[in-house]
């Protein structure tokens, strides 16, 4: 018991978030839904405290990281990187909720409560080597996301999105759970570290050993678990829910799903794949079957980015187009995982950081646009460039970054992803990704063309200065990061993450 209390400091950020979620819910009850902006400010303060604690934690952690009692929670730089990512996206999403003109202000406390709950799930999901806690974190994130997708109770589209989300989500969670149960049966442990490399006398069998003895059950179990992750990050063939849910859910929620939830899914995927198959890991016997999983992921990445980009080409709705674009970007990030090297993992993490800037910006633009016109189709964008120049030019920056052109962070992120993939011998994948970037140019620039090259249609001029300011800041960050302003710290952070993803051979005798 004392061990637990001593180690409470390690999960201080999670505790602060939990307290914040309860505080927000109670305050909303007491205020009976009035003064909704105050709750937003309280959320921002709580998130700032959490972020500060995480930065402290980053400073204190060495390369190795540390584990709490029974190896349940693993605190390392890899996890802290993604926690900072989650807090950062939550903060921007909170601002979006506060500034969104279409958001109903009644019951806003529950909205923040669910968002914070989803973040707590993401926090535990990214910082554990134990499959039980990973599953619980993932489900907490999912359950909060289902409710958020259906938050507009009177809206048919919101209800439909939530229903489709939970049907697909329940299926994939079940499939993943079944895969975990098979992995448990094969290896005799739930700890990813022990699964990857089981020392003598730990009572567990490493997955590599099992693979030599009985390849088919191991392959089935691994594929079932990967299916669960593929659903969470919307990789083909588990992407069907993405366009519908992204379109039907309230736009700030869509933003969170596309950025925060997806990054958490990738973090868990990278940790799972890294512990079991990383080819520059300690165990030489891993290499052979690690390469096969890498090849499987590479094929999935190629199909995902191609299908996402081709489908995005023929969308009339900007929101739906961004949904398909986020599928395509999942394919790019998966390239990093498919290379099965620490270098590739670092590239995937850097690309996710770039994705954070450009996708938050693009969705922020969508919220602004919906606030002004009440529509989300690309044709209604006509004249935005002349009526709202600041926002429109920011959007152009995000579009350039999403395409992957200099001088933005999107270009730099793609560059290191491509390098990592070539080093891992996946040159064919890089060629497909490059072709895909060219395809994506068409639909991203259709938006820019619609904004600038067409005559403005008369509309009520309405400005949202707060939102425009956020977009401006994000655009400046996107360009500066591309020009190299934050290149060194960001790369340093992303590089140190996988380095800390070392395999924890916990003392199995202690449990």
């Amino acid at each position, binding site marked *: 018991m004392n061990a637990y209390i001593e180690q409470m400091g390690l999960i201080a950020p999670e505790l602060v978030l939990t307290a914040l979620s309860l505080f927000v819910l109670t305050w909303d009850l007491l205020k009976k839904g009035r003064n909704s902006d105050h709750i937003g400010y309280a959320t921002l303060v709580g998130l700032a405290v959490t972020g500060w604690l995480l930065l402290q934690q980053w400073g204190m952690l060495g390369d190795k990281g540390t584990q709490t009692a029974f190896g349940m929670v693993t605190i390392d730089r890899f996890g802290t990187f993604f926690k900072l990512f989650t807090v950062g996206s939550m903060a921007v999403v909170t601002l979006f909720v506060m500034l969104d003109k279409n958001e109903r202000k009644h019951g806003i406390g529950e909205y923040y409560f669910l968002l914070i709950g989803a973040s707590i799930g993401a926090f535990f999901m990214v910082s554990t080597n134990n499959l039980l806690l990973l599953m619980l974190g993932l489900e907490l994130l999912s359950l909060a996301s289902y409710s958020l997708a259906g938050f507009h109770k009177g809206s048919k589209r919101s209800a439909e999105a939530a229903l489709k989300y939970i*049907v697909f989500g*329940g299926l994939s969670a079940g499939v993943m759970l079944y895969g975990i*149960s098979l992995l448990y049966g094969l290896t005799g442990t739930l700890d990813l570290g022990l699964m990857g490399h089981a020392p003598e006398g730990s009572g567990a069998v490493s997955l590599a050993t099992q693979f030599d003895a009985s390849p088919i059950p191991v392959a089935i179990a691994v594929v079932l678990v990967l299916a669960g992750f593929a659903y969470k990050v919307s990789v083909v063939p588990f992407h069907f829910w993405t366009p519908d849910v992204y379109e039907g859910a309230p736009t700030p929620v869509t933003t969170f799903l596309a950025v925060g939830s997806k990054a958490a899914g990738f973090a868990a995927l990278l940790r799972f794949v890294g512990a079991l198959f990383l080819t520059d890991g300690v165990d030489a016997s891993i290499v052979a079957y690690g390469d096969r999983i890498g090849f499987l992921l590479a094929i999935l990445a190629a199909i995902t980015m191609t299908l996402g980009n081709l489908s995005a080409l023929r969308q009339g709705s900007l929101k739906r187009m961004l949904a398909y674009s986020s599928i395509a970007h999942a394919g790019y990030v998966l390239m990093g995982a498919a290379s099965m090297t620490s270098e590739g993992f670092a590239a995937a993490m850097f690309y996710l950081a770039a994705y954070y800037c450009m996708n938050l910006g693009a969705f922020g633009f969508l919220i602004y646009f919906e606030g002004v016109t009440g529509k989300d189709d690309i044709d209604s964008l006509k004249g935005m460039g002349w009526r709202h120049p600041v926002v429109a030019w920011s959007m152009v920056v995000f579009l350039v970054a999403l395409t992957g052109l200099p001088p933005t962070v999107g270009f730099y992120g793609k560059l290191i992803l491509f390098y990592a993939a070539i080093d891992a011998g996946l040159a064919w994948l890089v060629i497909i990704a490059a072709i895909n970037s060219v395809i994506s140019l068409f639909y991203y620039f259709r938006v820019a063309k619609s904004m600038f090259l067409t005559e403005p249609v008369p509309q009520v001029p309405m400005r949202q200065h707060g939102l425009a300011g956020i977009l401006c800041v994000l655009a400046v960050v996107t360009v500066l990061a591309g020009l190299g302003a934050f290149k060194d710290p960001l790369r340093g952070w992303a590089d140190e993450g996988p380095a800390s993803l070392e395999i924890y051979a916990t003392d199995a005798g202690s449990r």
Partner: protein
Amino acid sequence: MPLGAYIAVSAALFAIGIVTIITRRNVLYILMGTEMILNAANINFVAFNRFGSNGLDGRMFAIFTIILAAAEAAVALAIVLNFYYLFNSVKPSEADLLRE
């Protein structure tokens, strides 16, 4: 009973769950299908724990899965109820507002 018997039951339950989800159009049956998949995993956990490793990991996981299934069912039924009020149906195929 040998371990194989347990695995056979759980594999059958898993298959029935998947088939239910794919073939049924009523969302309540789909939710029942997911429950079957979760329980298939539960049988696996408890059986593997009984025959294989020391410790209580598998049994603990089974208990947590039961709780998870309950939480998921609660959220799912709330969403289905809201869907039913708006569409007067419990068939996802009848909702077609969100499409290309």
